[in-house]
Structures are given as structure tokens and as C-alpha cells.
């Protein structure tokens, strides 16, 4: 028996005791024990990642998390992994620093997010607020297109991108997803709630149709916009398949592709790519904390009717 087994055994034996004293106590206890256990399991890999990134390579495997207090020193816990990570490395296309990949990912994710936010909300606005010939057909087509898995298009899109001369260019990653049926549908659902009176009032006051969309309708769906931006940003930030296929020059690569390369390169010194992973998850984490509320409501808006 070791400490961890004993702790788990105690947690398990307290439940029937509580339950026998009072049913309600038993259930409350079980709920909290379950939640705390789940939270620990879910966060443990992150804690491990954090510790591993700061451990010196000589003690990387020696301790499960951080070294014991008496061995805590600059020789065991230091920034060596980060220094190695951010030092410019010689590649086939000259010296490239890790910052470069970080900047690439940031640029690509923000550009994609901005462009698809504009195009999807425009499309959603048209479908929600105008009555025009063919709108039912367009909406039906969009919903049908959502059932086709994206990978079917992978092989032909590769040829199209090649024919267009877009290989190794960021537009190969930005343009194909710039106006997705999924995004337009999300914005349509949100924009349906914009009152028609408001739009009519804008028209009477002489606003152009585009200004009505931009300055009257869009401010009303700010939560949906936040959710959409976060979903799009995360998808592009974490995307691996398309950048791996379409990007070729080393200095244009994004973080997921580079960190995948590092697994092979730093097999003996894995603290370095764990440090890289730690750096790579900071931007999505910040964005999520800022937009958490919108994100969850946006995520479930398609599935749960209010």
C-alpha cells in the first residue's frame, strides 16, 4: 500500500459512512469527491507540462513533478529549455527563431478570424433579414453542405491550390474557409432576433444597407460574434493538416507543425518542445478566459433551444 492508494481508499470508505448517517450528506459528499477527482485528473497533465518545461534536462526523468525541496536549485530548475527553444536555429532557409513561428500562428489565426467574421456575418445578415428569391434554397444547400466531411475536399483542393499557384502561401489557408456555411448559419440564427423596426428606422433615416448591417445589427449580436471569433481562432491556431500540406518553407510554418517536427529533433531533450507547447497554449488560454461566457453560449446555441 502506498500513500495514493490509501488516500483513495479513505475517500471511498467515507461515502458509505456519510450515506448511512444521512442520505443527503452521502450524495453531496460523492458529488464533491467526484468533481475534485475529475478536476485533478484533467489538470494534472498541465501541471506536469509546466514542471517539465522548467526542469533541467539532467533531472527531467528523475522526478514526477518538481524536484524535492532540498534539491531545488538553479541546476535542477531553470530556464534552459526556454533559452534553447528561443535561440535561432539553422534550417534549410536560414536562421529561424521560435518567435517567428509564434508570430506566423498569431498572424494566420487573427487574419482568418477577422475575415471569416466579416464574411460570415454578412452572409448571415442577408439570410436573416432579407426576403429574396432563392434564400430557402441557399439555406438548404448550406445545411446539406455541412454533412459533407471536409476531408473529401482535401485531395481536389490540393490540386486547385496547386493550379492557382497558392502553394506555400498563407492565402491557401485563409481563403477556402473565409465564408463557411457553419459560420453563416450561426450568425443567421443570432441575427434573426434583430428587430425589423430597427432596420426600417435605419432605412428611413437614410442609412445605406451596409451601414445598417454594420452599425445597427452587428452590435446586437456581440456575444455570438465573440463566440464565433474564439471558435475560429482556436480552430486555426490548433490546425495541423492544412498547414502541414500547403506550407513548405520552414520560416512560414505554424506552431503545431513545428512542434511536431521538434518531437523528432529533441527526442533526448524533450523539455525543449514541452516548453514550446507551454508557450503555444498561452494565447488560446488568454482568449478563452476573456470570452468564456460567450464561448459556451455560442458553442451550444446550435444544439439547445432556449
Amino acid at each position, binding site marked *: 500500500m502506498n500513500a495514493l*492508494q490509501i488516500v483513495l481508499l479513505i475517500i471511498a470508505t467515507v461515502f458509505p459512512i456519510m450515506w448511512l448517517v444521512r442520505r443527503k450528506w452521502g450524495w453531496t459528499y460523492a458529488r464533491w469527491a467526484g468533481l475534485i477527482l475529475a478536476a485533478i485528473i484533467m489538470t494534472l497533465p498541465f501541471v506536469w507540462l509546466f514542471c517539465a518545461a522548467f526542469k533541467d534536462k539532467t533531472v527531467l526523468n528523475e522526478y514526477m513533478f518538481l524536484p524535492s525541496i532540498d534539491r531545488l536549485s538553479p541546476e535542477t530548475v531553470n530556464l534552459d529549455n526556454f533559452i534553447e527553444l528561443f535561440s535561432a536555429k539553422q534550417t534549410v532557409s536560414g536562421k529561424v527563431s521560435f518567435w517567428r513561428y509564434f508570430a506566423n500562428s498569431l498572424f494566420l489565426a487573427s487574419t482568418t478570424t477577422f475575415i471569416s467574421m466579416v464574411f460570415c456575418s454578412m452572409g448571415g445578415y442577408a439570410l436573416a433579414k432579407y426576403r429574396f428569391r432563392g434564400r430557402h434554397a441557399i439555406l438548404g444547400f448550406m445545411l446539406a453542405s455541412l454533412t459533407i466531411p471536409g476531408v473529401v475536399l482535401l485531395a*481536389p483542393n490540393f490540386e486547385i491550390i496547386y493550379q492557382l499557384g497558392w502553394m506555400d502561401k498563407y492565402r491557401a489557408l485563409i481563403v477556402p474557409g473565409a465564408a463557411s456555411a457553419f459560420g453563416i448559419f450561426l450568425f443567421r440564427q443570432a441575427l434573426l432576433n434583430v428587430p425589423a423596426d430597427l432596420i426600417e428606422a435605419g432605412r428611413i433615416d437614410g442609412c445605406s444597407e451596409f451601414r445598417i448591417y454594420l452599425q445597427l445589427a452587428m452590435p446586437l449580436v456581440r456575444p455570438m460574434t465573440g463566440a464565433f471569433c474564439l471558435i475560429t481562432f482556436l480552430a486555426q491556431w490548433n490546425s495541423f493538416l492544412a498547414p502541414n500540406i500547403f506550407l513548405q518553407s520552414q520560416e512560414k510554418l505554424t506552431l503545431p507543425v513545428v512542434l511536431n517536427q521538434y518531437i523528432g529533433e529533441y527526442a533526448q531533450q524533450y523539455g525543449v518542445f514541452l516548453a514550446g507547447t507551454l508557450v503555444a497554449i498561452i494565447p488560446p488560454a488568454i482568449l478563452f478566459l476573456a470570452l468564456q461566457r460567450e464561448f*459556451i453560449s455560442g458553442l451550444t446555441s446550435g444544439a439547445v433551444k432556449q
Partner: protein
Amino acid sequence: MSQVQTPQAVASGVLAAKPSAGARRYKFRKAITPYSFLLPYFLVTFVFFLYPLLYATILSFHMTSGPGVRRFVGLDNFAFVLADPDFHRALYNTAFFAVCSLLIQLPLSFGLAMLLNSGKSRLKGFFRLAIFAPNLVGQVFVAILFTMLFTPRYGLFNRIVHILTGFGLEQRWLTDPRWVMPAVVIAALWLYVGFNMIYFLAALQNVSRDLVEAAWIDGAGPWGVFWNVTRPAVTPVATFVVVVSSIGSFQLFELPYVLLQGYGPKNSGLTIVGYLYSNAFENGDLGTAAAVGWLLTLIILTISLIQIKLSGTMENDG
């Protein structure tokens, strides 16, 4: 009977009587506005969805070697794929993964949502964040993390399993063909359990508190309340989650590809999309890849329809 003319009626009357050039231009502009709002969608969809879809159909009947070179071969690509033992392996692995997702991941997600549903609001936010956190980092980063967690002797996962059970310290998760797919399932479980929990949580919040209380007062036990009040309210969302999660499972690629740095020993971690990828971008055979894409679409559509149908009949029973 006096007719009161509204301003609009007056305006339209004027327009009808004398359609000036300005009015005609105004009408035209008004008619094309929605289409111009949708223009980006039309362009992108035509070039990167409709055309490729048609092109995928054409490609799937051709033998290709790299972009540009091709020859018509009829249904040979489909025949080749369906007879290829690698494709059978990929199909088996993907189906194994999908079934594990349904049977392990979704019940766990639902259980966590139930635990979380009645908590105090502030702590609830904390636990929700903790359980949802892996989704921020996506498949590739999770795979990178788990290549290290699964290391024999030193990996965190192996160490904890060893402390708890006394076995498994030297377990070669990523190099033993028998354990490759279970390893992928474990990593995916950690990644997606919080994602599905969010959906179940949203559904549970729609369960009427009055109805639950009424059921308690009428003497229903916890099981009775769950079966008669909670279950019917959650069924639509559960169907949605089951369908979406199956569709996602059948498109699994990045997680095993990065975790195994390829397809694993003896293709033990090959998935359908992995098979497609290796055909298209490692062998340069876009025709076979397009055929695999269509087969995958067929599989996904069939499974989704069956699931939607089944959930419908179950609703009628209850």
C-alpha cells in the same frame, strides 16, 4: 368610405406612376443587396466546395500520380480501396475508436455534467474550466503532451497507473500494436470529455426545476426523477452529441498521426483519414484518396441517419 393613404402607399404610388431613373436604380440596388452580402460565400463555395466536390467525383474514377497526370480507370480505385488490407485495418481502428467514444466518453461526459449541474455558481465555473481546459489546446498539442505522458518507466501516465495498480510501469503504449488504439482512446478521452460535458450541461440547465420538485413531492425517487423528467429533456441534445461525436470520430487523424509520428507499428494506429492522407500526400495518388473520401462520406451519412432514426423511435417508446 375614406381611404387613409399611408406614406408608403403614397411613395409606391408615385414610383408606379413615374418610374424615374433614380427610382429604378434604387429598386435594382435593393434587389441585389442580399446577393452582394452573400457574394463572398458564393465565390468561396464555388471555388473551394462545389468545384472540388465535382472534381473529387471525377478524380475518384481516375488514376493519378501527383497533380496534373491522370488516366480514366472507372471503378478501379473503389475496388482497390475496398480490397486493400490497409483500408480494412483503418476501418477497424476507426470503428474501434468511435465505439469507445460512444461507450466510455459520452457516459463520462454526462456523469460529469450531472455532478456539475447542481453546484454553486462560482465553484461551478472553476470546475467547468478545469474539465474543459484540454479543448483549448487541440488534438496536436494533446498528442505532443501524451507522447511524453505515455513514455515507458518515466511517463506520468505509466507512473500513476503503476502507483495505483502495481503494474504497467514498462507498458509500451505507443510501440506495442495491441495497445496503440487504447492509448489513442485514452488521450482522446482526456481531450473531449469536457467538450461533450458542456453540451450535456446546457441541456440539463433546460430541465424545469418545477417539474423536478413536483416529481419529488409526488414521491418519485432519484431514479424516477432522472428517468421521467431529466431523460426526456436531455434526449434531443444527447442525439445531437452522439451524432456529432460519431462524425468527429470517423474523421480522426491528427491525434494518432502526431502521437505515433505516423501510423504506428504495423499500421496499428492507421485511421480512415490517415489512409486518405497517406495515399494523397505520401504516394501522390489523389484518385484513390478521392475514392476514400467518398467512401468515408457514405459511412458517415449512413451512421448519422441510423442514429437519428434510432433516437426517434426511442423517443416514441418513452
